[in-house]
């Protein structure tokens, strides 16, 4: 994914461009985080509204993508705090999403299911590192935690996935 350059920002952001560049991947990330497509859409809408409102306050001290992703993760966290989120079943949620044309459908299904089942603190580092292709330093900034903590969480999240997917997704 290409990053949108920060310098020479206008007073108002080019929302068309931002949605095109970041929209789909944010929506997929929010879906895996929240385990509900409708709420993920709301979360992405909220994210972009916050981006619009606070664009002038963005100091450019990090990549634009990092800044927007941080907003998105915080929106998702707020949604998760609602008691309305109890008893979500990941498999049932995933079954409602139409399957693409991949030949690896079963493997993809198993992988996504296990990612969705991860606790939020492990899921967010996996999504940010592997899906959003962020560096440890950027993830630490987004989650407001030390880089060491990010590394440890990544390691543990990988171990959990490895154990769950052994003999199925992993070659070893």
């Amino acid at each position, binding site marked *: 994914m290409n990053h949108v350059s920060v310098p020479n920002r206008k007073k108002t952001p080019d929302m068309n461009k931002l949605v095109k560049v970041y929209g*789909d991947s944010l929506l997929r990330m929010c879906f895996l985080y929240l385990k509900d497509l409708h709420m993920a859409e709301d979360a992405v809408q909220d994210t972009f*509204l916050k981006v619009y409102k606070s664009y002038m306050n963005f100091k450019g001290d990090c990549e634009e993508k990092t800044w927007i992703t941080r907003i998105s993760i915080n929106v998702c966290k707020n949604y998760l705090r609602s008691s309305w989120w109890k008893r979500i079943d990941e*498999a049932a949620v995933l079954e409602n999403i139409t399957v693409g*044309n991949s030949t690896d459908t079963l493997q993809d*299904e198993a992988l996504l299911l296990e990612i969705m089942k991860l606790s939020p603190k492990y899921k967010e580092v996996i999504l940010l590192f592997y899906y959003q292709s962020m560096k440890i330093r950027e993830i630490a900034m987004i989650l407001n935690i030390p880089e060491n903590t990010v590394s440890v969480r990544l390691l543990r999240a990988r171990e959990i996935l490895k154990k769950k997917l052994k003999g199925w997704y992993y070659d070893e």
Partner: protein
Amino acid sequence: MMNRTIKKAIDTRLADIKISSELENKIIDYPNKTRSTRKRPSVVVVAVAILVMLSVSVMAAAITNFDKLLSIISPQVEQNLQPIKLSSEDNGIKMEVLAAMSDSNTTIAYISIQDLTADRVDESINLYNYSISTMESFTSEVISYDAASKTAIIKLLANGGKKLEGKIVTLRVDSFLSNKQSYKLFDTGIDLKKVISSTTISTIPLDMKIVSGGSGDLFEEFRKRGNINVLKTDQTNIALPNINFAHISNIGIVDGKLHVQTKWAGKGIDDHGTFILANDSGDKTYPSSIYFSIDKNGKAIYGRDYIEFIFEIKETEISKYKLFADHFTTYGHYTEGKWQNTFKLEAMEKDKEVDIDMDFGELKVNKLSVSPIGVTLIGTGNMSDTTLDISVLVKMLNGSVYTLNSSVRNNENGKFTWKFMSLEPIKVMNVKEVSINGKVVELK
């Protein structure tokens, strides 16, 4: 291998999840519009609409527990349900069997339990003694709780039946627990090295044949060994923060392993909890456990007054670890009564069986059966010794995939059935194939 694969897998599997033009318009049309908040589940909308039309008293009479159930479950489940609507009342508590669905060996029943006179039914209600006649194993979970009417709706799963279609069965509940207090992971504050070095260890022999329960990797090893040593009971009394229903009754190194013995002194039924060792790096070590009691002479006998937690950890490394308690749980209420209803099970879509030949080492699978409730593997082997982890996916003709991530196992005389359940009913006639740990069985 994982780096790019995850991104590719997510983008491929979720290819259909894109910013729709409608959503894009909502975002771009800001700032002059406020965000359109999505409505909460339709049941709320329906309830509000009904409120407008009807008086509160009329509505109270109109919204039955069966209606509530239908607002919770999916349309797919609803289509397969057989309404029962039979109720029984005892001890000021009403139970209603709302609906059921069944295949040849499994029944799923939805019941409501309502306290008409007191506060014994709450969100933490946990059925204790309950059964469906002709079945062997049971699990249950609360799927909804209404504090205003003190009513819980519970999904009950029963397995181990045979040729259930058309059978008359009795669902009965004899007791349940409620008023749960549960304490998640907390530091016991115990200085392990200090406590262990200051304690003189005495042990008693334990015949694993009289053990009432246990878990963990060492449990099987001990069971095969036959006799082991556990700590002599009640040699110390170390309290756990905030916990008044259990304490540490002895602690020390036995046969090179760290033993932590707990005594469960509370009156609650099904009180439980466990320990975890964790070091500064966050590495966790989980224990095996053994349940037992003692007679008046201090000899180990069958029972569950004590749980001995056993960690495989070197004595020299103990100072690196802290002892955490986890999931210490007690229930304040234990309610007994007699609630039962008898009804006839009607058949859903017929099961589809195929002969297969799959070898999973200690288990040989020779038959596979698909029903709307899930997939059953039938074969030979001893399941009690297996650590086999099986993943079952059902692929439909339209490409959609069911992931069956819960299972129950029955084992008798070297034969087993292992049932993997779907959360949504499976349309059997539309099943294309079943994948068992990646091995594909074609049904069409």
